[in-house]
């Protein structure tokens, strides 16, 4: 937008236009004096107007910081068993209380949050990579479009939760033997979630690539002999970034929920390795005596997912140029 304005105002200087427009008017000068606004500045301005999205962003950053930096301030080991101070209610020594083995619940919430959030982010990145890869290939190369989209449809027709459960059952032992118990299950869960959730991204990206591929700037790039890979990385990918970013935020939300669901069904991480889903699952046994043990991890999951969803909502509005500036 700003570039176009500039060329319009620069034309008179070449002496081809009538004299009346030769001198730029005052507000054009003013506009020239202000530096051009980048696209991301506009996005940020629009994003700021969405209150829910700002709140979501702040909350999400707070949760991530609390979960990763919290253990440096709250130095109790989450696996330390102190059987004499078991089943305590909230007090100054243990703000969230202790569990049936006397482990500090606040420390366990932080440790569990680290696992849950990192599973969410890693699985989202994997799904995003797969989805964008398939989507760009299908949109850009007409010959691959049919087969890849049929593949996407087939994956969409798979019963995901049952298949995830089956994958957990079958590959748990060999992977934990190969990479160690915790890392093996981490790899398994991330791969399982990534492989089963790339399809929506692929569909959205393909649709956008199909539209962008026909635009003039791609034709121009092609006419000066740009190779396909350069066209994709320099011209196509930056333009499909906004749908990819929106599906990234939604991807984190679904990945966190899926991981917690697996842990809740007893098929996620091992019992001594806390995640929010696992803490919730362990808390269910003490539902009648200590309902707060279920409440904290559940609230953490819900708040994280809610904040990420609002973030995605605001991002979608901010990245849509039709809504921006309205």
């Amino acid at each position: 937008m700003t570039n176009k304005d500039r060329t319009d105002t620069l034309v008179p200087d070449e002496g081809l236009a009538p004299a009346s427009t030769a001198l730029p008017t005052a507000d054009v000068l003013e506009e020239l004096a202000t530096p051009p606004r980048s696209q991301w500045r506009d996005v940020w301005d629009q994003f700021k107007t969405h209150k829910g999205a700002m709140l979501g962003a702040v909350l999400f950053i707070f949760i991530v910081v609390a979960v990763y930096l919290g253990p440096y301030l709250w130095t109790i080991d989450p696996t330390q068993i102190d059987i004499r101070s078991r089943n305590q209610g909230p007090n100054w020594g243990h703000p969230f209380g202790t569990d049936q083995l006397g482990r500090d619940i606040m420390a366990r919430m932080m440790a569990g949050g680290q696992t849950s959030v990192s599973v969410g982010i890693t699985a989202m990145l994997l799904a995003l990579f797969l989805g964008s890869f398939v989507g760009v290939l299908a949109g850009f190369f007409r010959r691959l479009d049919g087969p890849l989209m049929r593949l996407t449809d087939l994956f969409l027709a798979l019963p995901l939760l049952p298949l995830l459960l089956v994958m957990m059952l079958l590959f748990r032992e060999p992977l934990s033997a190969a990479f160690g118990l915790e890392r093996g299950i981490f790899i398994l869960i991330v791969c399982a979630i990534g492989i089963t959730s790339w399809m929506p991204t692929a569909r959205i990206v393909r649709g956008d690539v199909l539209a962008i591929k026909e635009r003039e700037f791609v034709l121009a790039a092609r006419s000066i002999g740009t190779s396909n890979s350069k066209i994709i990385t320099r011209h196509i990918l930056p333009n499909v970034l906004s749908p990819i970013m929106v599906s990234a935020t939604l991807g984190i939300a679904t990945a966190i929920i899926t991981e917690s669901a697996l842990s809740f069904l007893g098929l996620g991480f091992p019992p001594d390795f806390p995640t929010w889903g696992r803490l919730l699952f362990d808390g269910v046994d003490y539902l009648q005596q200590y309902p707060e043990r279920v409440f904290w991890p559940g609230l953490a999951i819900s708040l994280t997912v809610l904040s990420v969803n609002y973030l995605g909502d605001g991002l979608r509005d901010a990245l849509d140029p039709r809504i921006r500036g309205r």
Partner: protein
Amino acid sequence: MLNFTIRRLILAVPTLLFISLVIFLLLELAPGDPMAQVPLTVPPEVKEKMREALGLGQPMHIRFWKWIVQFFWIEPQVLVDSMFGTTFSEGDLRVISWQTRSPVMDIVVQRIPQTLWVVGTAYVVAILIAIPIGIYSAYRQYSWFDQMGTFVSMVGFSVPPFFSGVLVIVIFSVQLGWFPSIYDTTLVVNSWDSFVVQLKQMIMPVMVLALQITAQLSRFMRASMLDNLNQDYVRTARAKGLSEYTVVMVHVLRNSMIPVVTVIALGIPAIFGGAIITEQVFKVNGIGQLLIGAIQANDLPMVQTLTFIFAVLIVVFNLIADVLYGILDPRIRYD
């Protein structure tokens, strides 16, 4: 229309075959031995015999073919036999569960009514709540009702059923003691009192499932109504002097129901999948709990069959949604 339906039907066959192959291969290529639980004192040749008795002796493609035949040819025959008293399937081998040594399908048939009751009621309740909310939020866009609706459906999206389920148990059965926390499937409804008990035990699982579905459906209904409310035909209808009720509830609603109906059809299989967690929370012994039990007991035929039933549901309802869309919106038929 018939042409369109047949084309979709033909497309569904390779999809189903692909899914059955994926499920079969996943279980086949996975490490893990069904004989792992057998005591070490059993000699190897006996173990080999047991393996053959379970049908594990043959090459992979033959077993895949046998499984397909069992599922698509023998099991329907059994169904016909039990319905009409015929004897088509006599002597045929059926898919046998490794846990109970009885045919898998018999157990599934025992479990399906519980799931259908809970899931079906939840779906109906959710539709009945979501559609009026969607209509009103779209009609009064950005009003406080709409803002509330947006917030509630965001919460509905974000609170996973294993938390909302546990939360309602804490509130309504531990603290208030209004409803039982465990779903009793042996209850026989034959009097007013037992009906009340049945109603009480269904409220919580139904509400938990319905909250999630309502969140999605009402947003969808709202978006669809908003698309239609700004169309030219609405202005025409108002200009003709039709009452506001007729414009919104007849003209706009009928057009905006087209995508919503297909979404409702598409959502049914997903609900069966999602009900796995809700069944686990409220201890409903439906097919979701059967699947979890089978997974924990390493009962591969049961897992295979159940996963495949979920897949068949998805494919069938995709088909129904496609055909419904074709019936409701004539423009779709001629692509």
